[in-house]
């Protein structure tokens, strides 16, 4: 079971079961200390594990990150 923040990458790799959440990489389960959101994402991942019947299933979570975000390759984040 894979929880992905990179939809195109996951489509290419085709894990057996995946959930895509359109959150920034590094925030797959949401914001820090947002227990409700973290639990909601986790439960959605587990639900996908239970309900998937086809190899390569990719489920899009209907959640939106509250702010615009970007990925800047090469920008150091040590």
């Amino acid at each position, binding site marked *: *079971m*894979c*929880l*992905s*923040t*990179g*939809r*195109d*990458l996951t489509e*290419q*790799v*085709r*894990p*057996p079961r995946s959930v*895509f959440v*359109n959150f*920034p*990489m*590094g*925030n*797959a*389960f*949401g*914001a*820090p*200390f*947002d*227990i409700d959101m*973290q*639990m909601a994402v*986790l*439960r959605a*991942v*587990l639900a996908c*594990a*239970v309900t998937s019947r*086809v*190899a*390569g299933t990719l489920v899009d979570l209907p959640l*939106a*990150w*509250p*702010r*615009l*975000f*970007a*990925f*800047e*390759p*090469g920008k*150091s*984040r*040590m």
Partner: protein
Amino acid sequence: MSAHATEPIRYVDGLAKHYGSMGHPPYQWTINHDAPWTPLTRPLKKCRLTMLTSGGISLCSMPAFDPMARNDHRLDAIPLASGAGDFQIHDSYYDHRDADQDINCQFPIDRLRELEAAGEIGSLAPRFWSGFMGRIYNRSKVLTETGPAFAEELKKDGVDLLIAVPA
């Protein structure tokens, strides 16, 4: 490589453009046309779970991951009882400032323990996992050596379901 919050970021195109501008040849991404399948044969309330992160997360008592690592197949076993404040993150590939504050937004060990305590899942395995950090170019080693070795460790712990969280 920005994206509207409702439009998924196109990492493949963006990274190709970024590294192409530096003179690197196009990266040969993994493209699989099918996927393996192992049915979940018991209800979640009877399953044993664990979780893997590839986000450069290690216990503070362990050496840090190399944030600029290439082909690092290191895999740490993380004891189930580890505290949320016991971790460090060293990975230059993504913004982990939020996860530095609360590991649960990338590696939700507290949430999993809560689900176990509530009986929503059967049990957690004695070990969580962190490794296969980004930028592994020698993928055949994952397929033939380190991946199968990891699978054996999961079998030892009686794991029914692995949650993999790449970063």
